[in-house]
């Protein structure tokens, strides 16, 4: 069973590349515990890749129950967040470690 789950992970890792090739890419920056830009417009009904670049020295957690994402991005590094396909609408996200300032919205249209 343990061996089975190891194979599952390997297979999963291999298939990552193939799915990723189809995704459209967007960029987001974390600076002074704020997202820039605070709104990004993405196509509805498609897989989308968002590269989140954390320029602060401290880690941040990109979190959004609406987008079903939870991802830690260490200080001075980049993280890739994959979302969608989304129904048209507004999806809030925030930085869990600085939730009072780090806020943003993904608009799918």
């Amino acid at each position, binding site marked *: 069973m*343990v061996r089975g789950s190891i194979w599952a992970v390997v297979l999963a890792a291999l298939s990552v590349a193939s799915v990723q090739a189809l995704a459209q890419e967007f960029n987001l920056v974390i600076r002074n515990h704020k997202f820039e830009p605070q709104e990004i417009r993405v196509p509805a009904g498609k897989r989308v890749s968002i590269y989140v670049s954390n320029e602060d020295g401290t880690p941040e957690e990109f979190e959004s129950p609406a987008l079903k994402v939870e991802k830690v991005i260490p200080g001075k590094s980049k993280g890739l967040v994959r979302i969608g396909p989304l129904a048209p609408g507004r999806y809030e996200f925030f930085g869990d470690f600085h939730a009072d300032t780090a806020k943003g919205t993904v608009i799918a249209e």
Partner: protein
Amino acid sequence: MFGALIIVFREVIEAGLIIGIVLAATRGVTGRGRWVATGVLAGTLGAGIVALFAEAIANAFEGAGQELFNASVLGAAVVMLMWHAAWMSRHGREIAVEMAAVGAAVTAGRRPMTALCVVVGLAVLREGAEVVLFLYGILAGGASGSSLFVGGMLGLAAGAAFTALTYYGLVSIPTRHIFAVTTVLIALLAAGMAAQAVQYLDAAGAINVLGGQLWDSSPWLPQGGIIGRILRALIGYTDRPTELQLITYLATLVAMAALTWLAAPPRAAHARTV
């Protein structure tokens, strides 16, 4: 300071609930304290290492390393919980009889402790890595750091108190029911973890099926709130589940029940032990 306390507390309660349940499920097993402590210690050490290599992990597998790591950790915990459930189904009755007969000293309780020790370690590892990163961020932030750090430590203490509360809440259940209650809790725990794992695989881009959202209960019971988080840790509550998550959840419960039934000793042997 209060903000830091809340953030750390929120991260700690999930591992705290799991430790509380494991302690309650293993009441009467000799040396269980040592096993659980080993799990917590190994998990904490692992959390430090994971936090240290967070960037390398995140960048592995085309940027899907963190998601695949979380999915593997959850998957391993589900396997361990299933192993424990099967073992308990086979030997639980003997243990109960032995417990009643000799009071303590159940050496036969050794094997499921390894599985549960791993479950505790994995829970602490997953939640702990975030706490370590958060506290490190505070320390690196300088100036106002010390008061935030104290807040973080108080959050950790509150999480430990919550674990104790879970444990004492569970052990106040009459002994004849506690096996049944912890068995159900462990099954729900495993189902919730499996459903979370498939969402991580989806976020990693590894699977891309049945991603449709079934409902949205976030206006009434947001999963980010304290009650939502407790329910999420306990029964795998998600306010916006996908079809695949619900299917995985139910499939894990069925697999757990089937395993328990298959592992149960045959009727005849059963009668002899009783």
